[in-house]
């Protein structure tokens, strides 16, 4: 597999505290790769090690075929979690400055800054100072600053936080466009929906360690699917189907009907459940099989507490 990044046995310790423990993963070239985990799981620490800001306590990183160095980092675009720009700089100067720090010649940097701002609907704000822009606009400018030097590998740390839903969608489009241009994208997030929509592969981290690495369908396969059912009257579906091996729990009442949630596991799929309902003559008013979400997969992998923290 052609890899943009390979991390082997990464460890980061701060004194007695371990932030990242024996973390290994590989990011295929040209893919969109998500790093997921609750707050404090070690995502940002991992990403900061990948871009050379932090030195790992142990382990190795191969970035774009070489060690993390000035040369390889020039081909990497990075949007940190803690973000900000020089408030007195104009939008175009800020983007050009970040591109120039990565080795882009001045004239090219300014030309690209203007083009990117125009392409992203900020053309008329290009000479506006950052301090006069809204937080969302400034964040967009910083995203553009991370890609203005046309890197081969783009690393975004929690890129969607602080953006409204419209701008989140715009950023998703930007990520897809960059991937379509052949670039590798790695981003961290605790919003599973973004990862589900965008990622080819994901890495789930909990308490500094790897909980899962693979494709989104592989992750979803680890979470049990569910089916939502509704019965008329006082019919007790759990009491009837429980002895047949079905895992059914009461989920509340609505308009005089009872709602039930059935976990589809241990060979008891949606078809078997429906067949059993017919066999026992359950007064069904609703039968709705649902695909497991990435969040449910995450819960299955790391437990409820970690998942709640991730959702916060």
């Amino acid at each position: 597999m052609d890899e943009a990044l390979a991390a082997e046995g990464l460890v980061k310790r701060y004194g007695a505290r371990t932030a990242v423990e024996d973390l290994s993963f590989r990011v295929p070239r040209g893919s969109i790769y998500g790093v997921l985990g609750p707050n404090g799981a070690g995502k940002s620490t991992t990403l900061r090690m990948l871009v050379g800001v932090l030195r790992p306590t142990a382990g190795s990183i191969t970035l774009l075929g070489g060690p993390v160095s000035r040369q390889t980092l020039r081909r990497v675009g990075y949007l940190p979690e803690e973000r900000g720009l020089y408030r007195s700089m104009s939008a175009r100067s800020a983007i050009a400055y970040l591109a120039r720090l990565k080795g882009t010649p001045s004239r090219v940097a300014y030309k690209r800054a203007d083009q990117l701002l125009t392409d992203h609907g900020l053309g008329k704000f290009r000479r506006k100072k950052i301090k006069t822009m809204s937080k969302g606009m400034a964040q967009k400018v910083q995203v553009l600053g991370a890609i203005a030097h046309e890197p081969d590998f783009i690393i975004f740390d929690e890129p969607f936080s602080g953006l409204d839903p419209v701008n989140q969608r715009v950023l998703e489009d930007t990520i897809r466009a960059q991937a379509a241009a052949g670039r590798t994208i790695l981003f961290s997030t605790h919003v599973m929906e973004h990862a589900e929509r965008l990622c080819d592969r994901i890495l789930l981290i909990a308490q500094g360690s790897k909980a899962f690495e693979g494709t989104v369908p592989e992750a979803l396969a680890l979470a049990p699917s569910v089916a939502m059912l509704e019965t008329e009257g006082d019919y007790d579906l759990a009491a009837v189907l429980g002895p047949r091996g079905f895992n059914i729990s009461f989920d509340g009442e609505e308009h005089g009907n009872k709602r039930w949630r059935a976990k589809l596991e241990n060979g008891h799929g949606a078809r078997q459940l429906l067949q059993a309902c017919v066999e026992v003559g359950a007064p069904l008013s609703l039968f709705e099989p649902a695909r497991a979400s990435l969040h449910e997969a995450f819960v299955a992998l790391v437990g409820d507490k970690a998942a709640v923290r991730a959702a916060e």
Partner: protein
Amino acid sequence: MIAPVLLVARRDYFAYVGSWGFWIGLLTAPVIMAVLLFAPVLLARAEPPRMLTVLAERAIDGQTVRAAFAEQARQEARAIVRAFIAATAPPLEEEALAAFDAAATRAEAVSAARAVVARRAPSALAAFPNALPRYILVAPPADTIAGVKPYLSGERRLEGGGVLYGALNLRRDAAGAPVIEYWSVNLNHSDPSDIAQRAMRLEMQREALAAQGLAPAEADRLQELTPQVAAYDPRPSAGGGEVTLRQRAPFYAALALSFVLWSVVFSVANMLLTGVIEEKSNKILDTLLTSVTPLEMLIGKLLGVAAVSATLFLFWGALGGFLLSTAVTQLGSSIFGQIAAAFLEPRLIAAFLIGFVAGYLMYGSIFLALGSLCDSLQEAQTLLGPVAMVLAIPMLLVTPAIDNPNAPLVEMASWVPLFTPFLLLIRAPTGLAWTEIAGQGALVLVSVFVILLLAACVFRAGVVDQVSLASWRGRKGKG
């Protein structure tokens, strides 16, 4: 393509130069300096004479004190006229002072000297000082001190609306010895009572001589007896002659330059501190750290603000150089001309520049490192307190250095690298041994290197590992 370190320096430079604060500082500093230099003179000139009154039990005592005030005013007027002529038209000094001395009263004496200037150097006449007396003696508004008190406290005004500044009540005790009571609401100003005391002491001496059957005027003659004092410098370079202002001027210039150096180092180091705190609070550093190492960032920032300082020095240097050169050309042999020449001494300028580079690198690195540990200016102030106290030490040593630039305390302190740039500059005109200069220079170089390395470590901890005072306090609290 420019190296990242230079890009950091360039950005910082233009950020500072593009701010209003920079231009305000650039333009106002010479004005402030001029105000500091000339304000005392201008204030003294602008202040109207103070009104005093003298009450005396014995008429002779009153006459004695009034005469002393008149003589004091004449001598002060003579000093003012002399300083003016020495600065503006030195060749006229002898003639103008002869005319001054020949006149009977202070006012006539000033007019006589003015007439000489008007005749011989009319271009200087416009700036001729008015040489007003500091005190005007007025007739007592009441016969007793109790009656005068309302005038002193401001409850009543003198005829013509003036305010009475002070009253001297001269009386005799039971033994006939003079007693001077000075009444004034300005408690810290004792000059009038000092003048009266000197006058009455002379009067007492006259009376004592008379009691011994000697001529009272002998006291005045004895008062005038005073030895001549001359100072010499034994070093061959001094030429063996009496020490003149020309030889003293470099010390004054060095003192002034060390004060300027201290102020500039402190100001630009502060720029670095506030700059890095602003970057921390704006959360820019993580973005930059994938392109620039912490050491490169530290060096880039030092270079950027060094360039800002160079811009300031170029402007102030050009302006100061022009003014000083003009002073040397126009007023070559006068006090101003000689002091101006001392400022332009190449060795002094070199010592200033070397002192600036060393001081800036040491204090700039320290301030940058401290800034990287702080999340706000308030936090920085808690750290700056001890640093400012260390920085104040060289300035506290200026007083003993004026008295003796090679005093053991000053000499010892100049071996402390943090103080060397300032104290070496003050001591430079004393003709330091090359071994001492080389030794202190080497020590400063090593210190600059060590401080830079330590500062880079602290800076790295501050910007990369986000170590801060707050986090350290938090950890301590938890622990």
